[in-house]
């Protein structure tokens, strides 16, 4: 089962390597990982996507909690939540394909963020399956380069992790 896990950590040197080191040392896998400071900058929020049986996920959550600079851990897949990912795709174009690329971009409500006579760069946001679908249509037209941010997510509703510093 795929799980989206949010980890609120102290924004200090080495904290990311503690989290990543935990996954490699214990043989847990990471599909995607994003991290950036949040709130007043004293904390960072990590979103990671992993897969495993329930017992493995339980261990992952406990082991993350055990790391000293980890403030809070949540498995967002336990409840309703919103997932978003951003992708930049560069597509090589010729006279025949230019219009098609723009049409596809339009269907996925994505934007052209750079253009040359022979290429477009398209920015797509959405959940991962939307990005996959968009990419599947663009690939035959000639994708030369692409990058994805990995997933970020928040639980729905008015409750959530505290991002304010309590120092």
């Amino acid at each position: 089962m795929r799980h989206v896990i949010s980890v609120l950590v102290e924004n200090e040197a080495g904290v990311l390597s503690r989290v990543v080191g935990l996954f490699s040392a214990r043989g847990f896998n990471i599909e995607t990982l994003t991290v950036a400071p949040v709130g007043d900058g004293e904390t960072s929020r990590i979103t990671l996507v992993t897969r495993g049986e329930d017992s493995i996920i339980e261990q992952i959550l406990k082991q993350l909690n055990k790391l000293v600079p980890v403030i809070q851990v949540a498995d967002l897949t336990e409840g309703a939540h919103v997932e978003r990912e951003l992708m930049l795709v560069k597509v090589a174009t010729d006279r025949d394909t230019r219009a098609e690329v723009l049409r596809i971009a339009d269907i996925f409500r994505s934007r052209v963020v750079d253009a040359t006579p022979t290429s477009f760069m398209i920015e797509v946001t959405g959940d991962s399956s939307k990005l996959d679908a968009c990419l599947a249509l663009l690939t035959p037209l000639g994708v030369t380069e692409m990058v994805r941010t990995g997933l970020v997510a928040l639980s729905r509703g008015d409750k959530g992790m505290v991002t304010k510093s309590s120092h």
Partner: protein
Amino acid sequence: MKMTGAQIVIQTLVDLGVDTLFGYPGGTVLYIYDELYKNKHRIHHYLTRHEQGAVHAADGYARVTGRVGVAIVTSGPGATNAVTGLATAHMDSIPLLCISGQVPAALIGNDAFQEADTVGITRSCTKHNFLVRDVNDLARVLREAHFIARSGRPGPVLVDIPKDITVAQTEYVYSSAEPKIRSYKPTLSGHVGQIRRGAKMLQQSKRPVLYVGGGTVLSDASEELFKLQEGLNFPLTNTLMGLGSFPAADSRFIGMLGMHGTYEANMAVSNCDLLVAIGSRFDDRVTGKLSVFAPHATIMHIDVDPTSISKNVKVDLPIVGDVKHVLAQFNDLVHAPGFKSGLQDMGPWWEQINEWRKRECLRFNQGSDVIEPQYVIQCLHQVTKGEAIVATDVGQHQMWAAQFYGFQKPRRWLTSGGLGTMGYGLPAGMGAQVAKPDAQVVVITGEGSIQMNIQEFATCLQYNWPVKVIILNNGYLGMVRQWQEFFYERRYAESDMHVTPDFVRLAEAYGALGLMCDQVDQVIPTLERGLSHPGTVIMDFRVNREANVYPMVPAGAGLNEMILI
């Protein structure tokens, strides 16, 4: 008051109640050593002969006292030499503070002389570690490190201090308050509802076993455990790390469990209907094949570390909390009026256990020619009245010590259970001797293991530590040889260790007393003579070369599939 970083290190340690350090100097810690020189009257530094020895000594000190052991090493090779000691303490949850020097902050990352990424290297073998980047953080970091080391599930914490930080100056502000770390809040008390449910389980069980591990020793919960047993009278087994938490001579003690556990303990676990794990962690050396481990049992697990619960074995009733607290909570219920009458009749279960006991699984035959290693341990028990502090190395001798010494009290048994570090015994024994100068400290070792940190004899002599070293000399890396005998058709690949120094002359070279014994009737006299000598002693017992540790659960087999003698 304005102080340098080096002064702050000393002052903070003193304010934390630290009066003993084990260490080894070098370039990046020279300012700290200079302050140690000036503060000899408040803080004692013991110079080992290797950084691994320093960390193991701090570890032995911690195991005996329950306080945080402190070691100090220099950067680069000093820190890498400390790694085995840290990993050993980490696996056994021993509270340690290791201070390491680091190259000046401006040089970090430049492949400077004696630079190592100490924080990176030790990340996975410490509970936590810090690199101090600002002298204003130094006192706080040291206090937090000390606090993290001793609280929750204890463990080693390393503080890496760049040399320039030790000369930089700042205001030192005294504080005795417990550090507050918002992301670190260990659980002390157990959940009341869970404990009530647990008490009910105790009453419903017809075939219970208490499976008690090192967490019980670490949280100083022996009294609570004994009191619990006054209400329950359940069969109790110890893990290797739990030995001494309950008196071995008590009739309710059924021996150690696991790979070299007793037949009765392993059979009881295999047939119980309730397994109460107390400060133990279902290590693979304990459980054997998981699919047949305690197959009929409901499992209750008390542990301060939530990650230990349901890690290897699915637990039915988890109770997260400090063992001492949780057992006290249980005692309130178990000793309440009416509880005892609700317990099941244990008669048939004890009858069954006594049947298993009749196999006498630890039996051995001491003939008149060759000394059996088990016999030496039995004699040691007799001569020391079971009251010595025993440190061991790793191998057959370690298992025989565990099986035959009979520990009556906690914090007298020092062994590397989790990592299995050969070379642990002698330095750990030194730390124990520092902690208890008047206690009889005995190191039980093999001719292989002792050579891994043999340099520490010089330390013993420097400080006149009366540590007694007993070598069960079988001329083999015996545990390796045993596996080769059982599972590799007696192909003894590189496990022959009959070429050793002459230990008697070696002892003399160091200035210690050396004794050799190869006669059965000389075992007791040799022990008596060695143990009563006021200084450091090496006793070289030439024992049966091919004796094996029985019983044994082969790796991957179930606890009920033991090889018996």
